[in-house]
């Protein structure tokens, strides 16, 4: 890198997903073509135009009970997912309790809007029965920074506590702001990532805009989400969390931590004109800014983990921006056909899978991509796993409100390992 800022590396990464609770399992199930998308007969959404789909995760009860009751009281699912992912990330990094609690470590954990299930329950209780039936910590389960403060309390963090809530860019923005905290010398370590819940209310926000996919006649749920495909019809919401340990590079090297990757560029911007639609020009500017910060050319990038949710407009806008910068020279895929759109978690979760792709020299394809849409066909779209060494990679996320975020990572060289 050309700057004098401290370098920032990733030394741990935990995941909680619908296809597994560790990176290796998640990667292997994705590689095997498994899908977490299923029909949700238990969801009610009056006015929906078809059968509802989602990619829910089922957390084993013992995992929930592994968290102390008093800490768990303030946790909705969104915080439980984040806490479990953080615990695994810390274990992988080998950070000590002293390092976690001495003020040099902070956290930045984003979610779309806090816990949608807890917000719904809080409002229901207020309106139905007032305070008599309101648990003491109901409010704390709901708030926009619930995942971040719960993580801080569980692990005794006393550094910065940040919680970007920028819809589907939240997780990647959290990693970006954590990267900045370390580059600016404010923190040595940041626990950073995203978490989110799939609920009918959240699905409803997409359905209202006709962005939710419904299975066509005779189509399995697992075939319904088709990023970049000519027959794509929308997304399905998913849930989960991923949290990374970001660390100042010299600190990591001195303590002998294993470096999973380095973050070498990040950018976030606004379209300044869109609420619900992706904006190709703004995405292009964001990609360009991230490449500039990383001092890289488009030709240096070996893989792009796309945002592509499976909507008609969003995938086309992303493809247009990627094509203008990268042409067909860089392999591109989206994991949302199998994991659904995990929204505030997606940036971190898909980055976690990318780390695993790089470790195994195997790029995962976009499932259900049978016939690339003409609007997306200018890219090198992965339709099958590809064996390929991967050094530099891009992860991008776009969100309601016209927000874009792009992160560029580099796998450590053999010398550093």
């Amino acid at each position, binding site marked *: 890198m050309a700057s004098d800022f401290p370098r920032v590396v990733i030394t741990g990464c935990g995941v909680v997903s619908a296809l597994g609770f560790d990176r290796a399992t998640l990667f292997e199930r994705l590689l095997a073509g498994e899908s977490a998308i299923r029909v949700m007969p238990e969801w009610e959404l009056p006015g929906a135009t078809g059968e509802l789909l989602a990619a829910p995760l089922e957390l084993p009860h013992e995992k929930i009970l592994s968290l102390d*009751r*008093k800490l768990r*009281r303030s946790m909705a699912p969104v915080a439980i997912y984040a806490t479990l992912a953080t615990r695994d990330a810390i274990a992988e990094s080998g950070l000590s309790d002293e390092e976690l609690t001495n003020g040099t470590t902070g956290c930045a954990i984003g979610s779309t809007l806090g816990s949608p299930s807890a917000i719904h329950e809080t409002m229901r209780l207020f309106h139905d029965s007032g*305070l*008599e*039936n*309101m*648990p*003491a*910590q109901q409010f704390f389960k709901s708030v926009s920074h619930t995942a971040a403060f719960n993580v801080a309390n569980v692990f005794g963090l006393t550094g910065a506590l940040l919680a970007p809530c920028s819809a589907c860019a939240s997780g990647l923005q959290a990693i970006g702001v954590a990267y900045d905290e370390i580059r600016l010398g404010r923190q040595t370590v940041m626990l950073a990532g995203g978490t989110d819940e799939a609920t009918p209310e959240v699905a409803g926000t997409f359905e209202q805009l006709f962005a939710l996919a419904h299975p066509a006649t005779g189509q399995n749920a697992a075939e319904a989400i088709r990023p970049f495909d000519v027959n794509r019809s929308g997304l399905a919401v998913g849930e989960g969390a991923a949290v990374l340990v970001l660390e100042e590079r010299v600190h990591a090297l001195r303590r002998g931590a294993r470096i999973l990757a380095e973050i070498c560029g990040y950018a976030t911007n606004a379209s300044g004109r869109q609420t619900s639609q992706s904006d190709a020009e703004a995405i292009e500017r964001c990609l360009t800014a991230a490449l500039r910060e990383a001092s890289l050319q488009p030709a240096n990038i070996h893989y792009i983990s796309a945002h592509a949710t499976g909507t008609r407009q969003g995938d086309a806008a992303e493809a247009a921006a990627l094509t203008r910068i990268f042409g067909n020279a860089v392999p591109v895929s989206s994991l949302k056909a199998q994991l659904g759109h995990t929204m505030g978690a997606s940036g971190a979760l898909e980055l976690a899978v990318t780390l695993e792709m790089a470790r195994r020299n195997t790029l995962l394809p976009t499932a259900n991509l049978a016939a690339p849409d003409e609007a997306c066909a200018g890219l090198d779209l992965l339709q099958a796993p590809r064996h390929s060494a991967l050094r530099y990679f891009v992860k991008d996320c776009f969100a309601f409100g016209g927000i874009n975020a792009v992160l560029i990572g580099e796998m450590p060289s053999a010398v550093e390992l």
Partner: protein
Amino acid sequence: MTREEIIQHVNAVFVDQFEIEETRLVPDAQLFTDLGLDSLDIVDLLVELHKSIGVALRNNEEIRNVRTLGDVYDFLEKYAREHPEEIHSAGK
């Protein structure tokens, strides 16, 4: 509502909500020191008792004086005697 029924309802809250083994639920047990509750748990105890037996205790001064599990039983037994119309036993 009998004292036995009150004990059943209260103990169910301590087992389900506070995850305390039933064998530890003896009348002499101090809520904070022996059973590990804190002030937030007391708010939740009132919420659960409201759901369980219908008593609305948020504005009751006397409930704030309980120290032991036996105090909770005694308070509710007296309360049920004095306010029988408020008590129900919908259970959970």
